[in-house]
């Protein structure tokens, strides 16, 4: 399946401005299914890693209090056109997703 991570990186000199959005339910574990009344188990991203040319530029540790379809933005220095920028996450069920873009 195609990655459900979207990433937009804007180069501003050597500073990369990163915005990323990913599809994930981010279930809290305290919601109940409206039809069955059963508790929906927690299902959330635990850790996100952003790398530029394989060097980590940001690691985000998440709880269930990060909103559904999480969004993150940050800036890092030392980027240039042609760099390979990658985003990946793992969640509490061991699922994962990743994507990469070449900076322009």
């Amino acid at each position, binding site marked *: 399946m195609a990655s459900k991570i979207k990433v937009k990186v804007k180069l501003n000199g050597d500073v990369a401005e990163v915005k990323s959005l990913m599809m994930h339910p981010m279930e809290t574990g305290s919601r109940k299914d409206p039809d069955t009344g059963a508790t929906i188990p927690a299902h959330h991203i635990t850790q996100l890693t952003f790398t530029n040319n394989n060097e980590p530029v940001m*690691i985000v540790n998440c709880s269930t209090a990060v*909103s559904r379809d999480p969004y993150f933005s*940050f800036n890092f220095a030392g980027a240039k056109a042609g760099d390979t920028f990658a985003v990946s996450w793992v969640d509490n069920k061991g699922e994962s997703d990743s994507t990469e873009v070449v900076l322009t």
Partner: protein
Amino acid sequence: MQPGRRLFIRGVLALAALTAVPRALLAMAWPANAFGAVAASDAMNELFGTSQSTPSDAITLGAPEIAENGAVVPISIETSLPDVQSISVIVDKNPRPLAVSFEIPPGTQANVACRIKMGETSPVRAIVKTPDGLFSTEKEVKVTIGGCGG
């Protein structure tokens, strides 16, 4: 409740061991104990070894006064403090107060934004870790009952 939670945390740790560790670049495993803490001070202790932080004007916390939607509260944190190692967000009145924690390698600017959930009106605190210690700022965000849209 407790055994269940411990089991959950063990599960998470096991998963982290299985999936995350091979990625050698990870700085630190997911801090399960800090995220599992029910009291904000416990979350701080688990994450930093202390629950004390120094209020700082050098941190700007962007958060709405009244959240349009408790499920999606946009927040941003920016600081001019040097050598920032991490930025963490604590929502005191959430069932698990530690919401998110950004680990910031050298070269990355201390300027982050994300969207979080808030169960009720609560102080939102940004905790910034530097080699000089923990610094913080806070802002109260009101969460109201929605109208038809909410």
